[in-house]
């Protein structure tokens, strides 16, 4: 048990009981008792008015953390192209490295991708650690984990950030288990506690209902995967200079147990939801699969990408690639039009950072309106066709509407 109640101090106010996200605290004889469901989140500690709750000091083994220096970001490339997440990690990594006063290195694995190494410098890396090998052209868990783990053991970075892509989320845990260090998944916010050089890794849990800030106090490197589309991209600066540390790692075919025998691009609708400026999303209120035709029509008119709520994806109306929300994509377009989406917390988690949100829903109490800038209560099958029509003759209508004011 790590969260302890000092019974002498406890006044039985029950504040902790209400606050506990896991229903783990009970009042017994007027004192708070922490039960088995406790996940040691510490929510109760903060809320206790008399400081009767505290966290037991951890006694943990770890490594000599002073041996570890520098911030690394994994620069994921596919088929010789850098992913946006690599630039987002450089943007965030730059801030962290500057705060800590250390070097920012990009770790690039690939085959004949020297041009990417240069690009990473221009985007803010002080150094690019470039492992070039023909067996690194296509990602394999075995080869990538081997090369990166060897680098970590040799060079000892204090922080390693990886994009939480389908590949990053395969690689990260494999490395963390081999190195025996902590890994925080899918972070949406990173900060540094300068006092002890700790990376404060904030991530959503419980389907976005709860945010947790996680630290790795005694192990290094502090590893995090970072959700794509959340951090700001680094700025390109043509004049930046840096070191490209290129080497050929020792790798043989036999190092790779799980072999990629074929790579297929596409095969599913390519939706770059994260990069869309405008998203038109459909929810359960569409009533059926056909409803997405209307959504697509509006999206086409606006040059937008089609999004969807989890309910519609679960119902099989649309591919998972379109899903916005906790278990789908996080988006923050300039304009998000939610059509027939009630606004379950999971959905809001994925889109509420959008600059402007328009909600169309027949239920005026739908939670989506709480995050919306513009709300329309009504039948989307009546409203959307009118919007499409209005867009056809937009300029003229704008004048009319302005004149009304």
């Amino acid at each position: 048990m790590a969260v302890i109640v000092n019974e002498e101090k406890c006044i039985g106010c029950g504040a902790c009981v209400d606050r506990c996200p896991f229903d783990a605290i009970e009042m017994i004889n007027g004192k708070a008792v922490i039960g088995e469901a406790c996940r040691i989140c510490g929510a109760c500690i903060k809320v206790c008015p008399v400081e009767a709750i505290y966290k037991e000091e951890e006694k943990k083994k770890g490594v000599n953390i002073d041996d570890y220096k520098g911030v690394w970001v994994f620069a994921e490339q596919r088929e010789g192209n850098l992913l946006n997440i690599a630039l987002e990690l450089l943007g965030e990594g730059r801030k962290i490295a500057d705060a800590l006063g250390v070097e920012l290195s990009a770790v690039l694995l690939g085959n004949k991708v020297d041009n990417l190494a240069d690009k990473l410098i221009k985007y803010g890396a002080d150094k690019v650690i470039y492992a070039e090998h023909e067996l690194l052209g296509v990602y394999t868990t075995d080869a990538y984990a081997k090369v990166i783990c060897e680098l970590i053991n040799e060079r000892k970075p204090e922080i390693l950030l990886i994009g939480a892509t389908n590949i990053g989320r395969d690689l990260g845990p494999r490395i963390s288990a081999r190195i025996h260090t902590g890994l925080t998944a899918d972070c949406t916010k990173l900060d540094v506690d300068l006092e002890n050089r700790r990376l404060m890794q904030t991530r959503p849990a419980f389907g976005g209902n709860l945010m947790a800030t996680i630290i790795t106090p005694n192990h290094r490197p502090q590893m995090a995967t970072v959700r794509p589309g959340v951090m700001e991209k680094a700025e390109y600066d043509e004049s930046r200079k840096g070191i490209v540390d290129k080497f050929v790692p020792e790798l043989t075919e036999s190092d790779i147990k799980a072999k990629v025998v074929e790579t297929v691009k596409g095969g599913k609708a390519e939706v770059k939801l994260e990069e869309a400026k405008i998203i038109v999303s459909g929810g359960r209120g569409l009533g059926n699969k056909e409803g997405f035709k209307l959504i697509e029509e509006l999206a086409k008119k606006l040059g937008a990408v089609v999004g969807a709520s989890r309910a519609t994806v679960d119902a099989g109306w649309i591919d998972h690639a379109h899903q916005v929300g906790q278990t789908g994509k996080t988006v923050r377009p300039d304009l998000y039009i939610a059509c027939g989406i009630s606004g379950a917390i999971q959905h809001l988690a994925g889109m509420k950072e959008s600059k402007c949100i328009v909600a169309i829903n027949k239920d005026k109490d739908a939670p989506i309106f709480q995050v919306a800038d513009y709300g329309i209560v009504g039948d989307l099958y009546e409203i959307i066709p009118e919007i499409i029509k209005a867009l056809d003759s937009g300029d003229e209508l704008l004048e009319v509407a302005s004149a009304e004011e």
Partner: protein
Amino acid sequence: MNIIVCIKQVPDTNEVKIDPVKGTLIREGVPSIINPDDRNALEEALRIKDQFEDVKVTVVSMGPPQAQVALVEAIAMGADEAYLLSDRAVAGSDTLATSTALTATIKYIGDFDIIFCGRQAIDGDTAQVGPQIAEHLGIPQITYVENLKIEGNKVIARRSLEDGYFVIESEMPVLLTAIKELNEPRYPSIKGIYEGFKGDKIKVVSAKDVNADMDNIGLDGSPTNVLRSFTPPVKVKNLEMIEGTPKEKATKLIARLKQENII
């Protein structure tokens, strides 16, 4: 062939709501379920069992004693046997410590050709425990599996990417993580429910029973710590409701958006 499927009992996060006044989670009446991706993993294991002779499917989970009900459900779906690692010593484990504890349990169960996990659990969404178990066991991993074939001693898996897929081949033993696209999980059978609750196919074991490395499990054996947790603040917006006939509503909306240079 021996297949071990790792499952987790999770609260149905779809049912979790926020108390609008207190800003806390309402957990009352939130059902516990087998984690959805884990259900796909179990289904695929059961399909292999349906397809080939002499396949044994063993389910393993870690959690409080109440998690046994998830194992009953797994038995009711058709698993042969189930193990629950239930021990105060594993409480507070992060993903690495969890993977250490589960690895010990898997070794305790014995031989395996395939370890199947769900990609990630809906309460944590980390997707880390599967690969970490693979690393501890020193076996290859294929994550995000959306299609699977068994050929002799080899698995051939389609591994999903954001913009396509890899076809990956590996010899067994191998660890695979399943995604929703892999299959449509079956329901527990009614007969299976009654059989499962007899309990004779479910074994509850402790960390000592499975010889877990006590230094690397539980809260103290976890490299990561939760510093604090909080419910995310809901941004207060200035909502403007647009009224009128459908046509007026549409016209006014477009006008607003244009005025703000949004479209």
